[in-house]
């Protein structure tokens, strides 16, 4: 067996047999991931002026409530909503990150929210909402009866809900969550305040119903309507669903985000600890013994770092599997594997760098912890990366954490291996830089 492989296997064996290291490498990140996901769900914070596009394909009144809600005074600091008319262009703007999300109110939205209007239009070709008292009076009696029957029929729950799509940029996933929250709230409010009923009543009154007793008026004007028919509409759940759709079909979830960012964080802990073992071996005398064996120093270093890389790979692969089992999504498998390999190499470069320049194990430990925690904080491990100022985001690209979050975000939004190649290239470039500087340190220390 080549000596490099023997050395690497020894490193892996030593790591696996270290209970403390195993807890740090595997158990802690898993528990933290779950805790963070449980605590935050799809929550957010610190947002303002989220650029939002609204495409209204509906020609009814109800969609206007949604638009008004998204531009209301109480959310004007939060959202910067803009009405758009070209769907393709609007989607392109979201994909280009020019907007956080596009809310698409579909054709027939109002009809579905207030079904009787749609049914009457469908069956009789009459737009109830455009009728005034005079034209309602002029309707033939059989038509009025038919309208009454359709009103009662609309009490039956709808099988298919209409979908309000929120087409969200993966890089604005928290914002998409906020928009979804607002839209959902608007729709719930519609249901709770029985907007549907109110509109019909208003229409009936507008056509000359005798008073605010809508049920009676409805019964008078539309003889087929039984007592209580309108009230029952108020209790009905709106047949509307809200779905967040990213350009690649996935939305933001803290579980996904924290699973990958925590994996990178604890990978960093593991590799910096692995790098420290080189200094520990020097202190223990095993490095000297290796150096007087007929093994080139380069092979010793390569074996050592190889072992750290293999251990890191095992760690992240296990975390990938474990977090997937609890529902986390990392991305397309091929891309995830490539990302893991590159990120482990990159992180091992940090370990090499620290062990090459630190004076002793204690110093390496202190530096390693500081680098890991600061790097994680500025990269967005503990909160969404895109909430950080641009200059911090750029600065953090000196860390494997930032590249890891960028790469996994891209994978989670559905990009494949080809879609993350530039990011992998960036991380590899950083890896080479780390190792070049580390080699200078190694030559200085061990020459």
């Amino acid at each position, binding site marked *: *067996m080549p*000596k490099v492989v*023997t*050395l690497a296997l*020894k490193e892996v*064996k*030593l790591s696996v*047999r*270290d209970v403390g290291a195993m807890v740090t490498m595997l158990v802690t990140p898993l528990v933290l991931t779950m805790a963070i996901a449980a605590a935050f769900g799809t929550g957010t914070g610190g947002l303002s002026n989220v650029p939002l596009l609204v495409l209204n394909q509906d020609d009814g009144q109800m969609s206007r409530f949604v638009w008004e809600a998204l531009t209301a005074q109480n959310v004007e600091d939060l959202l910067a909503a803009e009405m758009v008319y070209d769907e393709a262009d609007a989607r392109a703007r979201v994909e280009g990150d020019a907007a956080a999300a596009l809310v698409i109110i579909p054709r027939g939205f109002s009809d579905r929210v207030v079904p009787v209007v749609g049914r009457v239009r469908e069956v009789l070709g009459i737009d109830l909402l455009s009728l005034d008292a005079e034209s309602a009076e002029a309707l033939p009696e059989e038509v009025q009866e038919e309208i009454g029957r359709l009103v009662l029929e609309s009490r039956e729950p709808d099988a298919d809900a209409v979908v309000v799509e929120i087409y969200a940029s993966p890089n604005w996933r928290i914002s998409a969550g906020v928009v979804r929250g607002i839209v959902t709230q608007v729709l719930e409010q519609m249901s709770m305040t029985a907007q549907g009923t109110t509109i019909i009543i208003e229409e009936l009154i507008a056509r000359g119903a005798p008073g605010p007793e809508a049920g009676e008026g409805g019964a008078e004007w539309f003889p087929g309507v039984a007592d209580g028919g309108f009230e029952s509409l108020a209790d009905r759940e709106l047949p509307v669903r809200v779905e967040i759709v990213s350009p690649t079909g996935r939305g933001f979830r803290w579980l996904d985000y924290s699973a990958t960012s925590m994996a990178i964080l604890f990978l960093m802990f593991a590799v910096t600890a692995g790098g420290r073992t080189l200094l520990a071996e020097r202190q*223990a*005398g*095993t490095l*000297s*013994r*290796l*150096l*007087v*064996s*007929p*093994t*080139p120093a380069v092979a010793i270093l390569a074996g050592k770092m190889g072992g750290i890389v293999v251990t890191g790979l095992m760690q992240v692969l296990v975390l990938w599997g474990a977090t997937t089992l609890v529902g986390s999504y990392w991305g397309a498998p091929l891309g995830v594997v490539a990302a893991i390999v590159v990120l482990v190499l990159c992180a091992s470069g940090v370990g090499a760098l620290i062990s090459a320049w630190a004076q002793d194990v204690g110093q390496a430990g202190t530096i390693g912890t500081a680098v890991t925690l600061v790097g994680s904080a500025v990269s967005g491990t503990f909160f969404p990366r895109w909430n950080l100022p641009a200059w911090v985001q750029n600065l953090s690209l000196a860390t494997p954490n930032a590249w890891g979050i960028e790469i996994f975000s891209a994978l989670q939004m559905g990009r494949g291996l080809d879609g993350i190649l530039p990011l992998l290239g960036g991380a590899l470039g950083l890896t080479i830089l780390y190792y070049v500087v580390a080699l200078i340190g190694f030559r200085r220390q061990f020459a």
Partner: protein
Amino acid sequence: MSLVEARNLVKRYTADGPKAVDNVSFEIRDGEIFSLLGPNGAGKTTTISMLSTLIRPTAGTALVNGYDIRTEPMAVRRSIGVVPQDLALYGKLSGRENLRFWGEMRGLGGPALWEEIDEKLALMDLTDRAGDRAETYSGGMKRRLNLAIGMLGNPPLMMLDEPTVGIDPQSRRHILDYVRELNRAGAGTLYTTHYMEEAQELSDRIGIIDRGTLIALGTLQELTQMVGEHEMLRLQLYQPEAGQALVDGVRGLEGMHQASAADGEVVLSVAAVETTLPQVLTKAADLGLSIRNVEIREPNLETVFLHLTGRALRD
């Protein structure tokens, strides 16, 4: 053929720092046990580190098994076994796994290595614990495993750097027996120690090193002859802190050759015990000191060291 030919070895750790080893030359002959004897910091480990190619000499060179340590370090490494002063083991690997790992690092492998591992475990009386992690071994067992690792591949030259430091007398005895056994099997040995008794017991020839300089070299007999007819007196005081005062008091006495105090003992090299000892006892009484024990010794390596340096070996 010489196993080692050290020629004017010099080592400075920093460009303007003191010489840790200063112009050291010696030879180790085939099948010989050669000891480098000296106090801590004398330059023993630096010398062995240069010869094993761990560090490069500042000046001078050496041939080890015919290979130049400067230009053929890999060939040197293949031809030697090194037992460092530190317990250079992996505690989380078992004894057998340690032997396997280090054997593979020496380029060994296959059935020959497995057989040798069994043989070394048996030789070191570690077979029963071979599967246990080394971190669970006693200090003596770790020392034995440390030695066994160095012996892998049965190299023609073993370099042992103070292999008995910090262990109990029984384990020390075992290790000295193993070294002798190795020698009987034909291996030459470079053995460093600051224990005079070990050097005396084991060595065919001894080099005495002090402050980086090789101050004497020869067989035990040759070295003790350097002292002449002097005998050694070792006194233990009830007031160990007053040793230096007694040394100062007895320096001018007739027949007094060397005097030194260390570790609560006073060591004197004298021409004739029967005439000098009464004077020493009188001087001690004058200084108000009480003698706890007096030991009279024939000339030995300690006498030689005292004779050559004016200091006891343990200073």
